């Protein structure tokens, strides 16, 4: 079979049919696009005349029959135009398709009847060398074109963002006023670890001194905890919040403070791989915090979640997977509008303030050392300061702007205890393998009043009253020092060590040892024991004191002591 057999007459006919069909299609194509452009221009629904009529009608006080009639007519026309146009377009499109098909088929036949004969020996084919040279020329041309195009783009596209940011950097010197005090509602509740401000001081002055867990006397209720965690309870109004986590998941619980009934439980899903944590830190070591409307919980995964008091998720984010040999330990704290997170890990150290309502960062300040200590908010004469301990320094930040106010090198070792404050200008910090220091706040950097290095805390945080300073150690020692001079007032040794931090209630101090014995003694210059009460199970958490009640998280149970 000869595939190149020429049949000129049918070939010519097919060719001309193809040509006519192509011309037809081309004309249709042009008509359709012209029509398309026209309709786009006309835009009957946005016709200025119609808009004007509508305006006229809107402005007339009584019913303007004429305008109404006109609008309706116009509307009808627009609709008719639209639909007939749709019809036209559809027909046009079909005709075009038909034309294209005819052209295509005819053309294929013309190719069949008048096949292109093979041409032998392309004369223009350049030889290898020539081709190579030409290719290199052209490639160079392309290269130049690309480079020129890139340069043009690079210099024609300007970044307004860069301008704005550089301008902001210059204008950053404006002074942000410092917050003067914590909201009063915070002081009536227990919004974070170690109470309002996180310094271990209760604003109420009464708490039970007699109860018995075994007989249930003086114990309002007790309830079993669903998931393990080392964090301490926080209390707001009639709600208690806690978190717990293990490999299975992360949870936040809310209990009724009056009955101990669980009100809700929410899981916090994680988007990251679980980090390795040590067994005595766990996945839920940080204590939650509340701003009075929402509660916040952070876990060893870096997941930070906010819920409202009904348990509805408000926001959630991950601050970045922490790299930490023990696990995330710093608790959260809020000043009512912001939530502060001390995020000091092995490869990333920072403190961030997030908008409590939305979780958006308000400020973020980089830091230098790792830490397991929790932030405290102290009310000083010049305003509220956010205090953070780390492996070397104690540092104060302005909670509003995140600006560093002062920093002092007086710590060392792996620091877990948080700062204490006597409410009157003296900050105390202490850690094992370093020393205890009393820092008198001044305008600039604080001055060190005294230092002491005998009995030092490892986990539990120290506590200060106006004139005295107390340390409870992991070995079971309690030391009382004079706040102003550092003179040792008394030392007392108990059977077990302390993980839980001592809390000042009125004139008494409550401190729970690892075996779960609550030691109550006077916050006085002599050791005056009031009671030692056994809880019957180990206690690692710091208790919460609200409205004359004590909430103690034991290893397995949550107790409410009081009426």
């Amino acid at each position, binding site marked *: 079979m000869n595939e190149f057999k020429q049949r000129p007459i049918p070939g010519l006919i097919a060719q001309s049919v193809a040509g006519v069909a192509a011309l037809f299609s081309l004309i249709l194509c042009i008509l359709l696009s012209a029509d398309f452009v026209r309709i786009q221009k006309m835009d009957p*629904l946005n016709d200025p005349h*119609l808009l004007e009529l509508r305006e006229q009608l809107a402005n007339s006080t009584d019913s303007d029959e004429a305008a109404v009639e006109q609008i309706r007519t116009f509307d009808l026309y627009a609709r008719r135009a639209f639909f007939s146009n749709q019809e036209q377009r559809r027909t046009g499109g079909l005709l075009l398709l038909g034309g294209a098909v005819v052209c295509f088929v005819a053309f294929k036949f013309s190719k069949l009847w008048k096949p292109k004969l093979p041409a032998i020996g392309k004369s223009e084919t350049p030889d290898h060398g020539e081709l190579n040279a030409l290719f290199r020329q052209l490639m160079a041309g392309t290269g130049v074109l690309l480079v020129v195009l890139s340069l043009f783009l690079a210099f024609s596209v300007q970044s307004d963002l860069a301008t704005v940011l550089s301008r902001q950097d210059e204008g950053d010197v404006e002074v942000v006023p410092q917050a003067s005090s914590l909201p009063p509602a915070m002081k009536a509740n227990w919004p974070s670890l170690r109470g309002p401000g996180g310094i271990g001081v209760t604003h109420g002055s009464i708490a039970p001194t007699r109860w018995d867990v075994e007989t249930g006397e003086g114990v309002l209720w007790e309830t079993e905890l669903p998931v393990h965690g080392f964090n301490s309870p926080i209390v707001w109004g009639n709600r208690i919040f806690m978190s717990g986590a293990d490999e299975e998941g992360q949870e936040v619980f809310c209990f009724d403070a009056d009955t101990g009934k669980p009100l809700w439980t929410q899981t916090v899903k994680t988007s990251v791989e679980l980090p390795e944590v040590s067994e005595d830190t766990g996945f839920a070591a940080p204590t939650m915090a509340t701003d*009075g*409307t929402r509660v916040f919980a952070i876990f060893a995964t870096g997941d930070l979640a906010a819920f409202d*008091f009904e348990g509805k998720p408000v926001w959630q984010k991950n601050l970045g997977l922490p790299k930490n040999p023990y696990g995330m330990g710093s608790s959260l704290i809020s000043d009512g509008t912001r939530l502060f997170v001390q995020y000091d890990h092995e490869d990333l150290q920072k403190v961030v303030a997030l908008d409590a309502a939305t979780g958006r960062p308000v400020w973020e300040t980089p830091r230098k050392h790792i830490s397991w200590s929790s932030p405290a908010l102290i009310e000083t004469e010049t305003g509220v300061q956010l205090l953070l301990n780390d492996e070397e320094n104690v540092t104060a930040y302005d909670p509003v702007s995140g600006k560093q106010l002062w920093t002092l090198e007086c710590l060392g070792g792996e620091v877990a205890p948080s700062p204490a404050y006597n409410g009157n200008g003296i900050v105390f910090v202490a850690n094992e393998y370093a020393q205890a220091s009393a820092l008198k706040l001044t305008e600039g950097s604080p001055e060190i009043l005294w230092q002491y290095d005998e009995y030092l805390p490892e986990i539990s945080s120290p506590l200060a009253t106006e004139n005295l300073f107390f340390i409870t150690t992991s070995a079971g020692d309690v030391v009382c020092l004079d706040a102003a001079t550092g003179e040792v007032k008394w030392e007392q040794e108990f059977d077990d060590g302390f993980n839980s931090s001592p809390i000042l209630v009125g004139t008494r101090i409550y401190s729970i040892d690892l075996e779960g014995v609550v030691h109550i003694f006077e916050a006085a210059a002599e050791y005056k024991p009031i009671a030692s009460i056994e809880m019957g199970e180990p206690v690692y958490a710091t208790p919460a004191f609200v409205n004359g009640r004590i909430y103690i998280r034991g290893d397995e149970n949550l107790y409410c002591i009081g009426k």
Partner: protein
Amino acid sequence: MKTTTKNWVWFIGIMALILGAGIYLGQSRRTELGKRFDYSLDEYRQVDPALIRYIEGEPLIPTIGKISALAVAPDGKIYVGGENAVQVFPEPEKFPVDGTPTCLAVDDDGTVFVGMQDHVEIRSRGWKKTVWASPGEKAYLTSLAVDDWYVYVADAGNRRVWRYKKEGGKPREIGKKDWANGVRGFTIPSAFFDIDIGTDGSLWAVNPGHHALENYRPDGMPITAWENSSFTIEGFSGCCNPSHFALMPDSSFVTAEKGLPRVKIHNQDGSLRCVVAAPDQFDEGVVGLDVAVDDLGRIYVLDPSRNHVRVFEEKQ
């Protein structure tokens, strides 16, 4: 030479084509919808400043969140209900409730009636709590009013006003459709339905679907009504307005609207007396502007979007 030229011509031609297509495509934008597709209420947000006869004072700032209910007690204290609590101004007092109250009323003796979404709780002086059973499955309580004998509860879900005796019990139904007695029933498209008690002891209720304020005898017989539908400042706009109202000491009406948030005062016959606050004074899209009036004629407007109780006083 000839081959080179030909190559370059081809090359430049195709490059130009690519560049041209790139520029054309890079610059082409989809046409946006035209003016006809704008939904603009700007025209109606403008209010003649001469009509505004009130100025705003210092707002009351509650410490509770999500405020949703407002009442002025006969002794002049202001009760604000919000998330899990009711706060009392001016003293720093507050008592907890379970959930967020939707409405509040305070009796002469200081008893507080707290309307939750589907039931009423009563707090007597010593904060003793009594709970009344829900008036019905569909109950959605939106307003409370109390006089010397009765407690009236507006229920938007059932489209009724329930009249309770003060000690509770089975309520009497007001507002059931009853053409024989001229009761057309309440048309309530969304959960806004407010009531108040006039100085003569009659009940005033909004019929929001009709843009009407209707007056009933305590037994549910209609007395009078007025309505005014309009997007302009004289009437009420949208599908269910006024959303809230309160009676002034002189029996005129302070009304608040949603959609176009505005607070106005209407005379007893329904004609507009003046404007308290124009839409521009509120955040766009705010709903639930509960209003209350104290004996001095000060107008309190609960602004849920700012979580403030805003106070308006008549210009001197």
